[in-house]
Each structure stands twice: as C-alpha cells, then as structure tokens.
C-alpha cells in the first residue's frame, strides 16, 4: 500500500530544476469534483537561501487545463529543454487528460514562461493510446515516446505527431550537444538477412536522416542500455565524434568514445533511470546516476570511479542552487510525506567542499554502502590517480635516461678531444648497430686432415654376403652387405658402379656411396650411417667422416655399403647392366697416418637394372614385416633420402617425452626391422620420411631425419611448438644431393653481390663529387630576366644534364680504388670458377 501511494505521489508531483531554482508541479484536485479527480495543475518554484539553510518559495501559480469536469489529469513528465524559438532553456511539463469516453487521450505540453511565471500551453495533441514507458522532452521542445515498435515525436515545428520511419523493438532517445542541436533516436535495425548481424541504427529527427548508430553506441550495448547521455560531440553525419555515458542493465556505467568502450565503472545498484552531468568547476565533472529504487550514485568523470552513493532519494537535480557559478547536485530525500513538505530533507553538494543539508541525520551515513566498500571506492579512485602520476614519472625517468646517455657520450667525446684523440665512431656504431659478422674464411683444411687419421682395423679380403639393388624414387641403389668376419673399418669402404665391360670400355657411373653398420646376429638394425658422400674415384678415403656409433663393438657387426645413382641417365644411355666395385683401405698402408691410405678394389658382382622393377617396396607397404627385403628397402631409403642430424638442446627445461610425441603424430609407423626408426609415408607426401630420435639426457637429444628438405622443415616447425621455448636446434651435419650445385649457386651469388657492391661504392664516390660540383653550377640560374635569358638558362641546364648522363655512362674513377675492386672481384670470381668447374665435372661424369 505504502509503495503504491508513494508512487502515486511521485507520479503526480514532479519536480525539475531550472535556473538554480526547483520547480514543483502538482495536479490539484479540482475543488468542485470529488477528491480523486484532478483537473488543475499548480506549480511552485523554490530557491535556496543559504542563511536559513532552507528552500524558500519564490512563485506559485496554477493553470486550469480541462474545462470539462471529471476529466482525469496527470503529469506525464517534466523536463527543462531548449526552446528553439526563444533560444532559452525553459521548463516544460507534459500533462495528459483522459476523456470521459476513454479511447482517446489528450496530451498537452505546457511551458513555464514569463515573469511572473505563468503556465502557457505549447503543444496539444491527441493519441488513441496512453503513453507508456519513458517519455522525453528534448530541445525544441520535442516530445518523444515509443509505442509498440515505433517511435513518435512531436514539436511545434513538426506540426502534429510524427513517426520515426524505422521500426525496431527498442528505442533510445538523446540529443547531441552541438550548436545546432541534433535529436536522435537509436534502435536496432532489423537484419535484411537472417544470418546478418543486427546493427545499431540512428535517426536524426530534425534532418530525417538515418545514420550509423554505432558511432554513438555499439550494438551489443543497445539492448542493455537503460539510459544514455552524450557528454560531448562534434562533426556531422558519418564523421560524428562523440563521448557518451550509458548505464547498462549489467550494473555498469560505460563511457564510450566514438563508439568504442573507453572505461567502465561497476555500479552498486540496478535499474538506472537517468544520468546527469554536474559540472563542479575546477574539480571536474561528476556523473550523477539515478536509480529507480531511489538510489543515487555519483561517479567522477575523470577517473571513472564512484565518488559517493545515496539511498532513499526521491529526486535528484543538477543546477547552481547556491549561485556560486558552478553546479551542484541537489538530492531530495523523502518517502510518502513528500508532497506535504516537499523540500524539507535535502542535500546540496558538489563533493568538493560544498555541502548543505537539512532534515538529515548528520551522523547517519549518507550512503547505503557499507563504509568498507565506500573506502574501497575511494582507494580505487586514489589508486587510479596515483597510477596516472606514476606514468608521468616513468616518462620523465625515461627522458632523463636518454639525456644522461647523450650527456655521457658528449662528455666522452669532449674528454677525448681534450686528450688529443679523435673519437672514432664506426659506421654501425653511429647508427647504434652492431656488426653481424666479421668475415673469416674457411678452415676446412684441418678438419679434413683430422679425418684422415682414422686408424683402420686389420682386414683381410672382404667377403660379400649379399649384393642387392633397388629402384627408389628416381635413383638406383646398389647395396652390398659384407660379412662380419671381414672386419673392415667403415672409414675406408665405398661402393662404385661401372658400366658393363661389353660396351667399349668400362666407365665409372657417378654415384654416392654410404656405409651402414648392421648387427651380425639378432634383429638387423641399421644404425646411423657412418656415411660418406663423395664421387667415386675422387679421393674416396679423404672425405670419410669418422662418426661411429659408440658403445657397440664394431667387430661383431656387419657392414652394409650402398651406392646410389640417378636412374634416368643410366636408362637413356642404355646401360642396364653394371658392375659393383667395392673400394676399401688396404691393411698396412693405412697404418701410416701421413700417407693417404691406398685403396683396394674388388669386384663384387653384377647388377642388371630392369625398368619393370619399379614396384612398391615392401617396407612402404607394411613396415611391420621383418625380412631381408625390408631391411634392404630401409637401407636404400636411408641412402637416397637427404639426411639431417640435429642436436636439440634445452639447457634449463627438460624435453619431456619427445619420442612419445613423435609416435602420437599422425602417420608415423614403427619399422620392425629397425625399431628406432619411424617411417612416415603418407599418401600426400611425395617421398617417405624416416625419423630417429635419440635422447641423450632429459635436456638433450639427437634427431636424425631422412627426407626431403621441405618435409624436414615442416616437421621441425611442428616440433618447435612442442619443444620448450628456450631450446635450440642445431644442425650437426647434413648430406644433400645438391651440395655442389648449391656451392656453385652461392658462389655465383657472392660474385654478383661483390660486383654490385664494389661498383656501386666506386661510383657513389664519383657521384658525390659530381653532385657537389652540380650544386655550385646551378646557383647561377636565378631570376630569369627576359625570354631569351630563360631559354639560354634552360639550354645550359639541359646541356649540363646531357654532360652528366654522358659522364654517368662512362664514368671516370680513381685508378687505385678501381684496382682494389678488381682485385677483390677477381678473387671472388676465382672461387666461383672453381665451384663451376666442380659442378661441370659432376655433370660431365654423369653424362658419360
């Protein structure tokens, strides 16, 4: 009951602030009618008297609206708005009368004008329904309301009730504080297509123009915004820039700037009703958020932190009630007794020193918030101020550091100048750069020599167990398995292929040879190849790498030697039969470390290549099989595929279960004949991939990959996501087929680069001189007098240009520098020639 009566009183007693005064509108019961019917509207204005600390009535008046008796009259809303015609802010009040028969509702907007104040009718209109929801009176005066899915407005200019020509379920009204004043309505646009997202739609009432409403309020906020106020705006149309605050149903006050969320503030209450701005002068702006349950919350606009909260507030107004030049907030407190003693309990404050109150317990806390929470808010506000101060401080510190550095450098230079030395800053230093590398040239020789000191074990004549061949990809692989008894050292062994002696004379077929260890008995597992790559007959022993898998006894293992060669030249040259020759270091000679170990050659058998052998290898079909064929497949794959060995090192983060990770990856299958190898042969990939992971300790491991380069890179890339960030992957060694070609290419590239750089540096020096000369020459062409003079000047300039380009085409350069450049370039060229020669030899050999 109490609630309803209070609501009733609120509905019928409306107040607004205008010009530092409070205006109260009340519907008076008509003396002639019974108590419940009202037809007269009275107003009272009050001003604040500091001495008495109370509101004093200034004027009073009444207006009879309805001549008809028994027409019930109600105040719908009252608001101060700009009267466009008179160009002053004027209080307006909207009242409604329901006619006897019902069905139609008579509305009239009254204004309080003149001195002494009188209520004058402004607009009158009729509606077939009663206004529900929020009704706004904005500049114009314009009355805006919604009904159903439409928004309506009326104003003296509009002449009659107009409908916003867009229909949406939700409407928000507001005005932009720009000089011309723009009233807008925001709504959700209906999507044209069902899957199209809804967007905010704006409509300027005066212009009758649709605009992008998300400039004011982003779409997701439209549905949850309860009230909105534009703080500032400039620009027009789509170039609109504005700052907006909106209170949302998610208990937040949100500050938007140009359609993006700038800041948010958690509100302690729900159901915000209105946001007002209090300009407190030098202390900044306060945002006053009014809530339906009579709560009011003040938020500092600068920090966007809650300043104060009040409850049991019947209405809140903003104005200069004290007449001091800045605005204050007036909070009227009161429950049901409001209409009798309207301005008895109040508080005027700007939270910055001004505070007048009456009828309130001074002891009683003004806020409904527990004090702890309140101090928390204060703390937050302080913290945010502190933080901004800190930012400034940090910036200053940064500046000081820069200045210090500059000072130090200058002091250093000065000191050096005083002591007679000239401070030399290198070019990169001047730019704050550090040289990436110092050029140092190869030191391959020593390592090569080292490798030659391999001590081969004693050997008799090697005994071949089996000779086999495979066609893998576009290569022919011939393999030879030596029996364990032969005990050859891996370093001296290689296999080469000769053409069948039947044709003219046996020629060497270009091939690459590799050596693998196989265990003598038990499951045959080819281990890491103690491989070698080199051309047959061209120092086969010199390029042996001495990698040997430690731990196992080499005596107890067999050797497998393979030779791979391109299949196509072989077939085109018609050579389908070839001889396999085994090369190995002879005993005795090799024991003398200085001498190059003499190689012995042994014919191991013949291989005849059949083009119809191009069948699928059993390994790729089923890696689970354990047979000699599968092992041979594996060996041939290991021979043919490019090989990379990486050391993966993660010094402070253990690697975890890398093996498990590889096995979990799709497509990797364990090879039964060599369980440490994993095979990836997905149909999408061109070539199969062989992987072997060997963990040294929890922080280190070796990864050996046999695959194409692209596949290797892809695999490493995916592996990097698994490995810890701090780990390093270093290539230990790689063997690729393209090595000579790559060498050649890089040598050529180097040549081109050095040529370009040398020339450009040579010419640049020249150019500079030229340009210096040119500048002095051009100074003459100033102030053209007559036409002939002008032409003469132009001609001269043109001739100069011609001369310049001629010089540029055949420049004169310093002889010393030129010689130097030629010297360096010829050096580079020699390297390139060497690489080209090697490459040519290779292709030549291939051809024969």
């Amino acid at each position, binding site marked *: 009951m109490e609630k309803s009566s209070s609501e009733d009183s609120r509905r019928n007693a409306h107040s607004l602030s205008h010009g530092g005064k409070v205006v109260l509108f009340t519907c008076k019961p008509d003396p002639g009618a019974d108590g419940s019917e009202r037809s007269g509207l009275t107003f009272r204005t009050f001003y604040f008297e500091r001495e008495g600390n109370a509101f004093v009535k200034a004027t009073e008046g009444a207006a009879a609206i309805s001549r008809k008796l028994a027409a019930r009259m109600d105040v719908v809303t009252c608001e101060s708005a700009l009267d466009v015609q008179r160009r002053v802010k004027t209080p307006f009040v909207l009242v409604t009368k329901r006619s006897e028969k019902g069905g139609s509702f008579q509305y009239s907007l009254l204004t309080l004008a003149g001195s002494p104040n009188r209520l004058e009718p402004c607009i009158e209109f009729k509606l077939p329904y009663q206004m529900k929801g929020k009704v706004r009176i904005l500049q114009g005066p314009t009355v805006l309301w919604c009904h159903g899915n439409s928004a309506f407005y009326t104003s003296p200019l509009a002449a009659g009730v107009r409908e916003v020509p867009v229909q949406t379920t939700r409407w928000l009204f507001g005005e932009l504080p720009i000089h011309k004043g723009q009233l807008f309505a925001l709504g959700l646009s209906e999507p044209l297509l069902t899957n199209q997202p809804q967007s905010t739609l704006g409509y300027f009432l005066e212009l009758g123009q649709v605009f992008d409403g998300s400039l004011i309020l982003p779409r*997701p906020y439209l549905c949850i915004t309860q009230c909105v106020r534009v703080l500032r705006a400039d620009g027009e149309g789509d170039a609109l820039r504005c700052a907006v605050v909106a209170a949302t149903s998610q208990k937040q006050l949100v500050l938007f700037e140009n*359609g993006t969320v700038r800041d948010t503030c958690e509100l302690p209450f729900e159901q915000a009703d209105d946001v007002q701005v209090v300009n407190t002068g030098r202390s900044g702006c306060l945002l006053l958020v009014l809530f339906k349950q009579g709560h009011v919350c003040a938020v500092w606009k600068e920090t966007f932190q809650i300043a104060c909260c009040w409850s049991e507030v019947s209405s809140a107004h903003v104005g200069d009630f004290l007449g001091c030049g800045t605005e204050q907030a007036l909070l009227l407190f009161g429950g049901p007794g409001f209409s009798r003693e309207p301005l008895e309990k109040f508080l005027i404050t700007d939270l910055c020193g001004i505070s007048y109150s009456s009828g309130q317990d001074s002891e009683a806390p003004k806020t409904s918030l527990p004090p702890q929470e309140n101090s928390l808010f204060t703390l937050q506000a302080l913290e945010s101020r502190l933080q901004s101060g800190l930012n400034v401080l940090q910036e200053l510190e940064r500046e000081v550091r820069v200045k210090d550095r500059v000072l130090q450098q200058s002091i250093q230079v000065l000191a050096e100048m005083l002591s007679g030395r000239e401070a030399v800053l290198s070019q990169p230093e001047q730019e704050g750069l550090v040289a990436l590398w110092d050029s140092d040239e190869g030191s391959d020789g020593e390592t090569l020599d080292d490798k030659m000191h391999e001590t081969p074990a004693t050997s008799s004549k090697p005994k071949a167990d089996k000779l086999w061949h495979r066609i893998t990809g576009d290569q022919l692989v011939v393999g030879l398995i030596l029996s364990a008894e032969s005990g050859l050292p891996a370093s001296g062994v290689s296999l080469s292929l000769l053409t069948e002696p039947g044709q003219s004379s046996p020629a060497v077929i270009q091939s690459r040879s590799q050596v693998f260890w196989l265990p003598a008995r038990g499951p045959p597992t080819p281990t890491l190849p103690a491989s070698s790559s080199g051309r047959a007959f061209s120092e086969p022993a010199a390029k042996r790498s001495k990698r040997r898998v430690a731990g196992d006894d080499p005596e107890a293992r067999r050797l497998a030697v393979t030779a791979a060669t391109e299949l196509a030249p072989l077939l085109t040259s018609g050579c389908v039969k070839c001889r396999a020759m085994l090369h190995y270091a002879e005993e005795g000679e090799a024991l003398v470390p200085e001498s190059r170990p003499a190689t012995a050659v042994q014919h191991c058998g013949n291989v005849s290549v059949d083009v119809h052998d191009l069948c699928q290898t059993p390994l790729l079909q089923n890696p689970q099989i354990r047979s000699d064929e599968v092992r041979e497949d594996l060996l041939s794959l290991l021979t043919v595929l490019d090989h990379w060995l990486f050391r993966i090192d993660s010094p402070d*983060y*253990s690697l975890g279960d890398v093996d498990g990770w590889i096995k979990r990856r799709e497509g990797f299958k364990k090879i039964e004949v060599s369980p440490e190898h994993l095979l990836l042969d997905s149909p999408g990939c061109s070539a199969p991939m062989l992987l072997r992971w060997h963990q040294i300790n929890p922080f280190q491991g070796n990864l050996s990959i046999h695959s194409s380069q692209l596949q290797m890179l892809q695999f490493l890339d995916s592996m990097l996501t698994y490995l810890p960030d701090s780990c390093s992957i270093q290539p230990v060694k790689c063997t690729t087929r393209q090595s000579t070609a790559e060498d050649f290419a890089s040598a050529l590239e180097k040549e081109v680069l050095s040529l370009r750089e040398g020339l450009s540096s040579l010419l640049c020096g020249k150019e500079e001189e030229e340009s210096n000369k040119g500048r002095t020459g051009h100074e003459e062409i100033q102030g053209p007098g007559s036409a002939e003079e002008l032409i003469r000047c132009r001609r001269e300039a043109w001739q100069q240009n011609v001369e310049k380009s001629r010089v540029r085409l055949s420049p004169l350069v310093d002889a010393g520098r030129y010689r130097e450049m030629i010297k360096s370039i010829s050096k580079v060229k020699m390297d390139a020639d060497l690489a080209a020669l090697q490459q040519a030899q290779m292709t030549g050999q291939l051809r024969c």
Partner: protein
Amino acid sequence: MMSLLAKWTRENNELAFNCKQQNDELNRDHNNLFSHRRCSSDFHKLLRKLQGIPPHSDHAQLELSVVYNACVCLTALSHFEEAELLLTQAAHRVLELAGEDRGTSDPSVLWRAALKSVAGTALHRHVLSLLCLQWGIWLAKSCLNPIKEFQEEMSLLERQGGAVWDDCRTEAKEKIPNIPRLVLDPRRLAELLKICTAIVQGAERLNEGWNTLSALQAAAALPAPRALIAYTHLLSGSCLAHMNRPQMALQCFRRALETDPRCACALYQSTLLYRQLGNVQAEIQALRILHSTLLLPPTTEPAPAAGRLLSPSLFLCSQSLGSLLSVPSALSVLHSLALKCVIHDRVSEGVENYLDLLAALRSEDQHGVTANTLTAHAVVSTLPKLPRLYLEAAAALLMARRPADCMALCDEVIGTILDLLPDKVLLEDPEDGSVAESREEREEAESGLVKLLWAAAAYLLLGHCYAQQEDWKQAVTHYTRCFNLLVKVHCKNNAFSPQVSAPDKESNQGVDLCVLQRLKGISLAGRGISFAQMDRLREALRDLHLGLQALPEGVSAGQWCGEVLWRLDRRREAAACWEKTWSHTCPPLAEALPVYAQELQSGPLLDPTELRSRLKELGPL
C-alpha cells in the same frame, strides 16, 4: 570502422604483448611485481568492459582469453582469491551462454557443467585452460582433493593437449589479428602444474608414509624446468631413505645435483644420510660442497618455466614439501663443518673454518643482512650462541697449538660476559621444583648458569694455554678462577646430585650440569698438573684426586695422579692409579658436549710406554 570485438581483441593483444615484453625486460632486475600488477589491472579493466555486455558466442573466445590473461597475472601476484573469483564468474558466463546456468556454487560441479556445455566447440580448449588455472590455484592453496577429483580431466587435457594446442598455434601463426593472444601458453602452464602437482603430492604422501617412488620417477620424465626435475629426484631419494635404502637414496640425491647443481637441499639431505651412515669423511666433504653452494650468489631465478611469468615456487608451498626443501643457513653449515673437522682429527681445517665463520659473523653484523635470504629454500638457523662459537674456536686453536690466538678469543669472551655474571646460581631439582619456582626465575637461573659456564670455560682454556706455554703459575691462576666460578653453582636439593657420565639429553639443564661437572674435573686436573710441574706435589695430589672425583674417567688426571704418587714414592698406589686409568679407553671427542668441556690433550703429556716400563721395573704387584 572496426567492430567492438576487433578493437577489444587488439587491446588484449597489445596488453599481452606489453606484458610479455615487460616481463622479459624486468626479469633481469627481479622486479616484475609492479609490471605484473599493472598487467593484471589492465586486463581486469578490459574484462570489465567485456563482461559489461551479456555473454555472446562471438565474444566468448576473446572473453575467456582475457579472463585467462587476467588470472595468470593475478596468480603471478599470488592474488589467488581474486583470480578464483574471475574464474568462477567466467564459468558461470559460459553456462549462461549455453543457457543452462543453474547457479551452482560447488566448483567441481560448476566446471564439469561448463566443460560439458562447450564440449566439441572451439571454446572447449579455452575452458580447459581456465580449468588449468583453477588447478594451479587449488595447488597453490594446497587443496589437493579437487585436483584428485579432476584427475581425469587433467589427464584428458594432457592427452589432447598436443593436438588442441597445436591447432591453437597454427591459428596464431596465421597472423589473423582477431585471434586473442595469451600471455602464457596454456600447454606450458599445464606442464608446469603437472610436475608441481607431482612434487607436492609426492611430498604429501611421503609425509603420510606412502611409497610414491614410481609416481616420482614418472614425474622425472616430464618436461619441466631443471630445478623441478631435481626436486623429483630429491623426493625419490627421500622416499628411498625412508625405505631404508640409503645407497639408492644417495644415488638419487646425486642425480638431483647432476640435474641442478644448485639444488642445495639434495646436498643437505645427503649430509644427513652420511651422518646416519657414519661416513664422516663423506659427510665433511658434502658439508663443504653444501657450504660453497650456499655461498653462490642467488641466481637470476632459473624459471623460464612458464614463460617466466609464473614461478614454480607459487605452486610449491605445501608444508611437507617445505620441510623437505629446507636447508640450514650457510653459517650453520660452516659451523657444523668446522665442528666436524675439529672432532674428527682435522684440526687445522677446523680452525680455518672456525675463523671463516667468525669473520663472516662479524661482517654480517656490520651489514646486518644475510646473503641467503633470497633463495627459495627455507633457511633453518641452528647456529649456537656467539660465546659458545668463540669458545669452540678457541678450543680448536688450542688444539692447533696456537695459544696466543686462543687467548685472544677467550679474553674477548670473558670481557663480554664478566659483568653479566650472577653472584650465585641456585639450581633446583627439575622433577619437583616446578611448583616452588616461577618460570622466569628458572629461566634466569638457567641463563645465569650458561653464562657462568662460558666464563669458566674461557678461564679453563686460558689455563690450558698457559700450561701449553709452560707458564705454570699463570696456569694455576686461571684454573683457580675457573674453579671459583664453578663453585658458585649450588643445587638446592642435596639429594639431587648431577649425574656426570650420562648427560640427560632431554633437558638443557642436564647438559649444562654435565658440562659443569666436567669443567670442574678438568680444571682441577689442570691445576694439579700445573702444581706437579711446579713440584708442589702435595697440592698437586690433592687437586688431581679432587679432579678424579669430579670426573672419574679423566685420563690426564689419572695419569698425572699416578705420576705424582710415583714421585712421592707411593709406587704401588701410582701403579694402581695408572692401571685404573688405562682400563678406561680414552674417549674420542663427541658432538654431544661442547668441545671445550672435553679433554683436549693439550697439556703436558706422559708417555704411556715409559710409564709401562716403569711399572715393569716395579714388578708384579
């Protein structure tokens, strides 16, 4: 115009980038608290914006990412409560999105529901990473039960981790700007949490007496920072030590050290084990290494673990783990090292260590800070009081035949405490005196007794010094001073006579009384010997007899008593006295008693073989 989502995503990505960068920059000066605070407040602000609108599936990924980022920053600041609040909120919003928020408050029910509601969608891995953070918070708060409850989900997370986060990486790699960046790879977080959980659980179960060896060994194979792997080995070692497998335990400790050379707790545990095994040399060696390890400057925390953002120590705060990881301070290690050396015939080394210790104490006194407070290990201080350290050092110097240095130390002790000495100490029988005496009185008496004993010991050592320098007169003077101090202690209850031989280890007073008695015996014996040297044989005999009475097992007193008797021509008695003395074996120095209260064999010695030959001449009794 950019959409709100794109803007917010960009804001998140910028924040994440800044956060990472600041972290990298500041990690060097160990001062990233401020940057973390700033990051967390920035993320929180962004989150407030995001949560200002109703949950929407378009925004959900971004929102969950921001929740994740904010919570990582909060966790790094140890603000677990706030982080948990955000996580719960996020879970509720996920449910709200699915339209099935039933407002449950039980976290496990909530998370299960949240996971279920996003199963099979792109949000799943986001919710999983949030759950991961929740796991970390549970761990940090030592709530192991919900972790056990979610074991299944965690392992799921682990198992599909690879695939799911690989997707995440590839997405991120595509450089699409609207993929929200995370400040920390969730997989790294999961890895870190997994090993931390294993360690904490291992420690808890170890404390409860379970065998957790297999779990710990499995944990050692996890991808983790070095220090944490070392902890798993350490815990395995402790477990083995509990199972009475000391050698295997030592192996584990060694492995811990190999993994992380700074794992001081492994060294400390090994010293304890060596002590238990009675391997003195190894113990001394281990103590020495431990000491030098502790002296190393604290490293720039080897925690690139979870992108340096989250330190493992955040999650390793269980109590039972703390007790396992605790290591005494460098100074107490140095003290035990010095004492061990002195007791086990490495006097010169012991002296050096004692001098180092005193120097360190003095410099620490000046600087007022301990260098090792920064280390992650809890520091246990077991260092004795300063006068006792001085006296021990003095005794060591005496044993090393450096009487002048010894005297300087003793003088310092006497100078410091002489004015504080009580005139008289009245002791009561601890068994029945509790009623009569108030606590303070007894404490005062005890502290008086302790000071008295220090002063007396200082005089005793001075006496020894003079005896060593053969200044017998001075020696007698100082032995007398020592004795005079000792007789100030009275026992109230006459029936309560202090037991000499067996020090009652339970009460301090027992030890003190034992020390008192020994000091009496040794000082009397010393004076007797000095008298004997001065040829005042009667007085010598009297003192030696009294000394033997006070300390029947005194070796030098016994020998010299015999010698004096011999000189007095009471050869039979002398022989009996010697025989009796020899029947006692000369006790080695023990750790239970202060070194200075034991016989240091620093005074004039008698050659036992010569005595025996004399006995032979005397013939059979």
